[in-house]
């Protein structure tokens, strides 16, 4: 914290010292010119009074100058001027007006000075950062991925401090409607001072995200964040496997490869469509429902574009045993291999690749216009094709929607979602990974349960922690022959035979994580449970976990007396009952 303060004060120092140095010459000039003109007015003899030439006092001379130099002009006071004084007044007027114009011009020049403005912006940024109360993340790079991440983090209730070297993007940041102000600074994020100014050393800084367009800078940010504050978690975007290995060895750094993530998601969409749909549905993607997961057909697929993305895609499809054909204009090592068509994707090359017999096409070039063109051509040649498109720019959404592609994937969105899961809810991330490996029947069953519980409503994901109070209650429950069981907490507060509309997805106890815990699971103090359900279910469970009487009713099925008198009466009535029985 101490060093952070030092940074703020140097910011302030720099701003003041710039102002003072800039204003020194104009101030000195103003003083000299005022002194000369005032002295002249005092020395020059005025109209004679009682036969002797009068002299202006310093006070009157200063007064005269005040309204002359500012071109107000109140006339000649206290008595009419002599001609000599008038001559001097003319001279005073011209030089003092020039001095004033010069001083004001310097002030405007200073305001427009880019260095001064940058110093001011930095100072404002550090002030805004120091005022953040809750947890926050430092985001370096505010491109497509960065802005999606900011939106996601702000939805999850975090503040984000943004550093980007493009002033236009920082300007865009200030125009977005986030619930809290997201401080933004236009600077090179690769400079450690900037990261500290963005709050890296503050105790409530939770993590750093490096998603600038430059891989080298991303790596530098990850290393610096690790050095300056080893406690924060760092997520870094990188496409080179060498760097991934190097960064992963730092321990706190997680590397996200956009191409890898994208092709992984895509192969997931092809082979485990229900898991992919579930992932989409959980993050609240538009138009995704659980009752009809998209099922890509099985057969020959055509991949257009064999860059880093296409290659990674090709590999993962090959690994899953999907026969693929590749179309790419570049002649490469693989071009001699079977199923590689050299040339731009057009009607000829598509036919050559066997578009009539193919079941699906992936338009994976790095140009949206190319991808749209490929989809149009392919659909004209084979209307039954499954169209899968890579959307490179976030702005092109409308075009991809209107072309009617079956599945559109945005690398930036996929990357942002993965990072968001890693940062905000690692439990969901683990859950989805678990489902990818799970049996099909289990996935189908989970989907059915979630669909029954939530239906068409917007799914809500939240984590509850079993408090110490609940843990202590367990002993009392055990004495009565009950226990703290997950299924009991999920009973409806109005009718305990019904259960609330939610599903427990993950149970985390110490370091152990179990998925889809059963209703009979006995809970302990400190357990973390990830739920998915409706908004109403969330409210109900919060009530259950906070109200001991409702909990008692849900677990035992009997409503306890609350008042002391009622308690005593109930106790004595029960005692009498027991006596009668025995």
């Amino acid at each position, binding site marked *: 914290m101490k060093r952070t303060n030092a940074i703020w004060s140097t910011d302030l120092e720099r701003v003041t010292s710039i102002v003072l140095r800039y204003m020194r010459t104009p101030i000195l000039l103003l003083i000299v010119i*005022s002194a000369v003109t005032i002295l002249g007015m005092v020395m020059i003899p005025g109209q004679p009074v009682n036969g002797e030439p009068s002299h202006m006092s310093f006070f009157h001379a200063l007064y005269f100058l005040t309204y002359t130099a500012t071109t107000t002009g109140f006339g000649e006071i206290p008595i009419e001027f002599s001609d000599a004084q008038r001559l001097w007044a003319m001279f005073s007027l011209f030089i003092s007006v020039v001095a004033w114009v010069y001083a004001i011009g310097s002030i405007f020049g200073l305001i427009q000075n880019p260095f001064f403005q940058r110093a001011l912006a930095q100072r404002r940024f550090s002030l805004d950062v120091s005022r953040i109360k809750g947890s926050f993340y430092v985001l370096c790079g505010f491109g497509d991925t960065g802005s999606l991440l900011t939106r996601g983090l702000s939805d999850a209730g975090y503040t984000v401090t943004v550093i980007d070297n493009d002033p236009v993007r920082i300007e865009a940041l200030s125009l977005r409607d986030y619930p809290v102000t997201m401080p933004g600074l236009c600077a090179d994020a690769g400079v450690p001072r900037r990261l500290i100014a963005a709050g890296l050393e503050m105790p409530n800084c939770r993590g750093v995200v490096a998603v600038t367009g430059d891989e080298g800078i991303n790596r530098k940010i990850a290393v610096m964040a690790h050095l300056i504050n080893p406690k924060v978690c760092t997520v870094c975007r990188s496409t080179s496997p060498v760097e991934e290995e190097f960064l992963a060895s730092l321990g706190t750094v997680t590397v996200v490869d956009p191409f890898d993530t994208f092709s992984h998601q895509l192969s997931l969409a092809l082979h485990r469509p229900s898991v992919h749909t579930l992932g989409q549905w959980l993050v609240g993607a538009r138009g995704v429902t659980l009752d009809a997961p998209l099922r890509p057909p099985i057969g020959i697929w055509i991949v257009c574009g064999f860059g880093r993305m296409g290659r990674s895609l090709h590999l993962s499809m090959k690994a899953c045993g999907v026969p693929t054909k590749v179309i790419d204009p570049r002649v490469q090592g693989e071009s001699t291999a079977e199923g590689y068509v050299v040339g731009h994707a057009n009607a000829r090359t598509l036919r050559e690749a066997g578009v009539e017999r193919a079941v699906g096409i992936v338009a994976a070039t790095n140009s949206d216009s190319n991808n749209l063109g490929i989809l149009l051509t392919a659909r004209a040649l084979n209307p039954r094709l499954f169209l899968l498109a890579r959307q490179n720019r976030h702005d092109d959404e409308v075009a991809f929607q209107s072309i009617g592609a079956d599945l559109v994937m945005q690398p930036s969105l996929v990357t942002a979602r993965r990072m968001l899961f890693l940062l905000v809810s690692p439990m969901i991330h683990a859950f989805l990974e678990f489902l990818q490996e799970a049996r099909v029947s289990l996935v189908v069953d989970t989907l059915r349960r979630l669909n029954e519980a939530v239906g068409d409503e917007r799914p809500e994901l939240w984590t509850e922690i079993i408090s110490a109070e609940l843990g202590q209650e367990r002993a009392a429950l055990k004495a009565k022959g009950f226990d703290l069981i997950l299924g009991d907490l999920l009973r409806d507060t109005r009718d305990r035979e019904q259960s609330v509309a939610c599903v427990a997805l993950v149970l985390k106890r110490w370091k152990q994580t179990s998925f889809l815990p059963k209703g009979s699971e006995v809970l302990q103090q400190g357990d973390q449970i990830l739920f998915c359900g409706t908004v109403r279910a969330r409210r109900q469970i919060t009530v259950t976990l906070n109200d001991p009487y409702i909990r008692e009713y849900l677990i035992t099925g009997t409503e306890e007396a609350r008042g002391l008198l009622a308690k005593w009466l109930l106790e004595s009535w029960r005692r009498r009952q027991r006596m009668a029985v025995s």
Partner: protein
Amino acid sequence: MNLEKVIFGFFIVLALTLNFGFVYGEIDQPHHHPALELFAAIVVNMMATGVKLGDRSQVGAVLLATSLVADLQLIAAALVWTMAVHVTQTGMQPSVMASIVSLAAGAVLANIVSVVMLVMDTMMLRR
């Protein structure tokens, strides 16, 4: 030799000497303390303040502070003068002159501190 240092030292010392010149004399004798000298002292003091602006060193900060104190004292003296002669019309009484001179004497102290600090700074540098 550094021209900036010369100008700097010149204004600081001149501020002290002019200020002292105004204060010198019987404290309540108006004809020992001409208005012109007070005017010159004020102007040179303000110039000295202006010259010190923008110095980021520790010594520079203290010099600026002493200079501002001297300005404040002298301007207060000028205000007392103006009030007595032009506003309340009491005229230049010995008691008024005494309060003006004592205010200016305070400014002399501040200026002495300035000069002492300037000398010390120069000695420390040994260049």
